[in-house]
């Protein structure tokens, strides 16, 4: 394979692997934990390196995953003291662990492959040069790591789909049915850590956050179904990865940064144009509802004052705007629409309800 094809393949696989656990983070309102975990896995890697002095050691991987889970546990520990709230606890814990890691790197591991820039940025472009042989195939290491992570995530989500779904949407019920929510929670956090570590080498810590959160958030605007959201997240993640690669290629800039940017663009597009939930669709719906609602309000107002002494005053078209505090033009338009729709009729200076208008008002009042 040509190196640029390999790079894109790695990017797509990493994006897909990140999107899967990201869906559950977004749904469980724990997206900021991806921020914490993706930073602190570095400490695990550094400690593993300082122990073994070997960047290829599996201990680095184990240490990094463990550190991700430890981060979550620490955040919970600090929150549990009741001395600080959860958001502040996250904001306290991960900068400290990350700071330790950065200082350890520059003090003790300065001249090896680990350096702070690649921590933030990843080295996707160089990924094809670091190769391994497996089953007679000559593969980039990052590709292999990404594939294993993706498959592990798919397997875990496949096996525990029911439990994850239940614990995400109704933790109380899940507990009552005997699924331990804590177990599911830590299982998920382990998955996030493994994914963060697997993706870390290739794309760096910040892109991990973008790939875990942006595609699921975009998918969340497109569907209500969990299975569909998982699929859409993977697709959006993969599309952002490829678009990001070409943006980077075209402008000759950081690939990781470009992929993060494109995942943001993908979210932005969904945010604006998602059918039903996008900003544009929402504005159109609200504009429509505004008139519907105003007509309902008008019929209800007429019903309330029907046959009362002040009806002449309250129900004349010219006085409506003063009573309802509507701008005169708006009030006139509402009356026009209501007349046209057969909800009200004019009797001299008085507006009265038609049968249809009365029904609408009664329906409205039952809400």
């Amino acid at each position, binding site marked *: 394979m040509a190196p640029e094809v390999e790079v894109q393949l790695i990017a797509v696989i990493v994006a897909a692997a990140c999107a899967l656990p990201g869906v559950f983070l977004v749904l469980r309102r724990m997206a900021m934990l991806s921020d914490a975990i993706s930073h602190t896995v570095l400490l695990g890697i550094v400690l593993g390196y300082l122990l073994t002095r070997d960047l290829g050691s599996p201990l680095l991987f184990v240490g990094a995953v463990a550190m991700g889970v430890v981060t979550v546990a620490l955040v919970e520990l600090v929150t549990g003291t009741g001395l600080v709230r959860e958001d502040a606890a996250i904001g306290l814990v991960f900068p400290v662990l990350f700071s330790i890691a950065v200082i350890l790197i520059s003090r003790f591991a300065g001249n090896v492959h680990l350096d702070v820039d690649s921590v933030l940025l990843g080295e996707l472009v160089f990924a094809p040069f670091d190769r391994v042989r497996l089953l007679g195939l000559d593969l980039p290491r990052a590709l292999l790591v990404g594939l294993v992570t993706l498959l592990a995530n798919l397997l875990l989500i496949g096996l525990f789909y029911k439990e994850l779904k239940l614990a995400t949407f109704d933790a109380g019920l899940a507990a009552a049915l005997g699924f331990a929510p804590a177990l599911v929670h830590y299982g998920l956090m382990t998955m996030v850590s493994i994914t963060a570590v697997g993706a870390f080498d290739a794309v760096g810590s910040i892109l991990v956050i973008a790939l875990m959160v942006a595609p699921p958030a975009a998918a969340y605007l497109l569907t209500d179904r969990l299975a569909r959201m998982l699929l859409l997240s993977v697709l959006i993640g993969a599309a952002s990865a490829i678009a990001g690669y070409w943006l980077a290629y075209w402008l000759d800039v950081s690939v990781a940064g470009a992929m993060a940017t494109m995942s943001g663009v993908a979210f932005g597009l969904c945010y604006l144009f998602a059918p039903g939930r996008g900003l544009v669709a929402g504005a159109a719906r*609200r504009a429509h*509802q505004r008139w519907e*609602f*105003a007509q*309902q*309000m008008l019929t*209800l*107002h007429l019903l*309330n004052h029907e046959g009362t002494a002040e009806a002449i005053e*309250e129900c004349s078209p010219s006085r409506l705007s003063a*009573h*309802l*505090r*509507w701008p005169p033009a708006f009030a006139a338009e509402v009356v026009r629409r209501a007349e046209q729709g057969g909800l009200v009729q004019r009797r001299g200076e008085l507006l009265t309800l038609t049968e249809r208008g009365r029904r609408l008002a009664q329906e*409205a*009042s039952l*809400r």
Partner: protein
Amino acid sequence: MHDALTITDLTVAYRDRPVLWDVDLSVPAGVLMAIVGPNGAGKTTLIKATLGLVRPAAGQTLIFGRPYAEQRRLVAYVPQRGSVDWDFPTTVLDVVMMGRYGSLGWLRRPGVRERDQALAALEQVHMAEFAGRQISQLSGGQQQRVFLARALVQDAQIYFMDEPFQGVDAVTERAIVAVLRNLRAAGKTVVVVHHDLQTVPEYFDWVTLINVRRIASGPVAEVFTEANLRATYGGRIAFLGQQGAAASAVGDLAADEATG
């Protein structure tokens, strides 16, 4: 003279869900009024719309004949106790002095006068000995009395209280009732969101029943009837009272009223 509170054609909607539909209401000055209605009936929203905290879709509210923005000095507000973080680093006396912030203007700091007023208000709710206490160390009832004292230092003409009796102890309940009676004796108007139907006739002389629409409003003796309560609560109510005026809600009704 103007009514203390005049609401005309008030409609409020959150997003596209109506919470209050075309409500009309006048409250004469000098009454103690309860607002009652089921959960989600719009009781809190009625107060918030009056205080300009939510924007109505139609209609308006007037305080003594003029819009709220011009009459702020005449109004005091006791929000729901659960609406703030009680672990905030501040003391009881400090919270009560916040009631004076509105009349202090932009740059003036609360001084000795405000301090004395706050202490006097705390005295009224039997909380004077807690003045220096951190607010997280108070019981629910004590927190409620602090909020009440904060409204008292506003020295207003009309008081809006959102569920002041919610989850308080007997001592606090008695203290609040005493404060309400003092306020009435001083000619003030008090509007209270209330959920314990049983105590309405005892504590209040005026009542408004709402359930998204206004069902009825007037003196307790005339308006607090079985027919009106039925219209307000639908079938979800058991009537224990003999004369029809006093009624009691079934247990779960009172319980799910908590957030109304």
